[in-house]
């Protein structure tokens, strides 16, 4: 749109409004305008300061949020940008988590190697699943991907060398987490100050989230991203104007599942051992649904929406699990032994989804967009 406009400067005094984009390059800039730069600096400061301010238990939840964020960003590329619904995302998370156990813990690979291996495995599985999207559309594709979590359960149940190698569990606590001299697992030692494991992992995992977000943002604003959005809006028309559907759909499945696998690596960091019952089968279906909830409540087709959604969903779930019995209002039914914390958690999760969708069906991102519009058009905000 804006590429059509030529650079015309007003002759007399005065500059165009800071939000006015004149060239395509302006449109594509990541940090456009002073507010966004300031916001980026604020985020960076928050990132550095948060681990110093919170307890290790809280930071543990934030590391879990990071793992869900990475997976959700991948799922958003698939659903929000390309319009291909998948309810089998947990199966790809399992690929990453079990790679940590098999390569990182059992074979003692260094962190970057098994992370890369997990990403490659994710890519490969995505390549295998991608072709289904060429043949199936919409709801049919969604139901077929439900099958993924059950097939993954079957594979893991029978592939005991990977799923339960040590006394019936797949341990991940032995996996090394260090990059060069920085050992995140033992806790960072920076200039004599020793930080705890959770503090170090917070910095590592949220750096990975930032990388994933930047990658997704770059994919979305490049040629492939425009191809993806064209496929989402109308895949037949996209094909007519020269978008290759094979390349686009298989490619996005591969990238999305690779991100899920990376999320699975981070997920495995939060646990001492991974259990295939949690990640595949019936519970895996619920985990996939949690991912779907994150992406939809966060906002389809926005990268930051996935992160906001992960914070909302995971944090509220953990908050209820930890504090469900203390607070006077929520605690009432738990103390009456009428409802267990897990059930209360699920009921509140369901209510959260329902109430949120009734109030804002387009998610947190739309809410934020509304706030931003109001400020951007100030003082004529009507």
């Amino acid at each position: 749109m804006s590429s059509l406009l030529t650079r015309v400067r007003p002759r007399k005094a005065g500059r165009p409004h800071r939000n006015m984009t004149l060239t395509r390059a302006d449109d594509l800039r990541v940090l456009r305008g002073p507010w966004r730069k300031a916001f980026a600096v604020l985020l960076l400061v928050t990132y550095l300061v948060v681990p110093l301010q919170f307890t290790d238990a809280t930071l543990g939840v934030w590391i879990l949020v990071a793992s869900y964020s990475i997976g959700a960003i991948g799922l958003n590329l698939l659903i929000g940008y390309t319009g291909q619904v998948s309810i089998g995302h947990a199966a790809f998370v399992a690929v990453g988590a079990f790679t940590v156990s098999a390569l990182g813990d059992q074979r003692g690979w260094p962190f970057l190697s098994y992370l890369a291996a997990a990403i490659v495995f994710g890519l490969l599985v995505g390549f295998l699943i991608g072709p289904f999207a060429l043949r199936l559309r919409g709801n049919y594709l969604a139901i077929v991907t439900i099958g993924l979590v059950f097939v993954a359960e079957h594979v893991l149940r029978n592939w005991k060398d990977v799923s339960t190698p040590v006394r019936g569990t797949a341990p991940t606590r032995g996996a090394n987490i260090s990059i060069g001299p920085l050992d995140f697992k033992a806790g960072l030692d920076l200039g004599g100050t020793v930080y705890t494991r959770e503090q170090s992992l917070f910095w590592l995992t949220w750096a990975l989230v930032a990388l994933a977000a930047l990658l997704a943002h770059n994919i979305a604003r490049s040629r492939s991203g425009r191809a993806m959005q064209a496929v989402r809006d109308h895949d037949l028309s996209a094909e007519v104007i020269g978008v290759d559907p094979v390349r686009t759909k298989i490619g996005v499945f591969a990238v999305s599942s690779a991100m899920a696998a990376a999320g699975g690596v981070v997920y495995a960091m939060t646990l001492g051992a991974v259990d295939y019952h949690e990640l595949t089968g019936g519970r895996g279906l619920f985990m996939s649904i949690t991912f779907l909830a994150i992406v939809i409540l966060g906002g389809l087709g926005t990268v930051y929406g996935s992160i906001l959604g992960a914070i909302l969903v995971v944090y509220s779930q953990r908050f209820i699990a930890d504090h469900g019995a203390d607070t006077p209002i929520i605690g009432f039914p738990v103390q009456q032994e009428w409802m267990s914390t897990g059930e209360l958690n699920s009921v509140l999760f369901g209510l959260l989804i329902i109430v949120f969708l009734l109030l804002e069906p387009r998610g947190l991102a739309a809410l934020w967009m509304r706030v931003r519009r109001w400020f951007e058009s100030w003082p004529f905000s009507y």
Partner: protein
Amino acid sequence: MISSDALIETIFSGFAVGAKYALIALGFVIVFKATKVLNFAQASFVLLGGFFCWQLAASWGLNFYLALVLSMIGGALLGVLIEQTLLRRLLGEPPFALIMLTVGILYVLDNLTTAIWGPENRDLRDPWGSRTLDLGGVNLAVADIWTICFAAVALVAFYLFFRYTSIGLSMRVAADDHEAAVAVGINARTVHRVSWALAGALGALTGVMLASGAGSVGPGLGLIALVAFPAMILGGLESPLGAVIGGLTIGMAQQLTALLQPEYAPWLGTGFDRVAPYVIMVAILLIRPYGLFGEREVRRI
């Protein structure tokens, strides 16, 4: 070697399992056809139907058949309530939001059910129990026979309802072309309400059927309903006939795999019968991407 008696018994129980899947799939299809919503909450109707019937029949000592009818009415009322209070407000929003809304309802209803009745499995105390009918070496479960009868009656009733009643006609018209239906004066709200009521009643019936015989009433009932997804999609999302045929195919395939696969194809691993429905679903959908009887979408550029 597998005896022919065992084979006949398996085919019969496959037929019964298939009938249950067909009922669940029919519930999904009715709502999808009328409202284009993939209704995850169907699983809660199944679960709650089982528990309603247990409460009425086993706990309060009502006649079992009366309890069955009352729980179907309860399921229908619940369906209408959900449609009226929640789904209606989101009409016209993106389909993802609607699907997610039904997932939210599923979470709330499933866990409230467990909170009210507790997590343990319990006996429905249906009149059939685990009795079997002996036909010269072949033992058929009485509950299975009744399940097949009930399913057949329900399916015929549905056929007659859609074919010969005016509300059935308007539901078919609305499913065919929603705008044209509204233009000729069909009340879309009534259509939505009736389809949710039917789905709720069918779900409750399925729940009771699943819990009767060798089954039991417990939180696991809802998960069985989610496993019936392949049955629905196999026949095609818009086709009630497809739901029935898909259900029977999947049920039969699952029971036969459970019997034959350990004997003839042990290399497929243990518990293959649980993934067999999905494998069959994928194989059929790759050949016919809109299911066996689904409507091929006509697309314009």
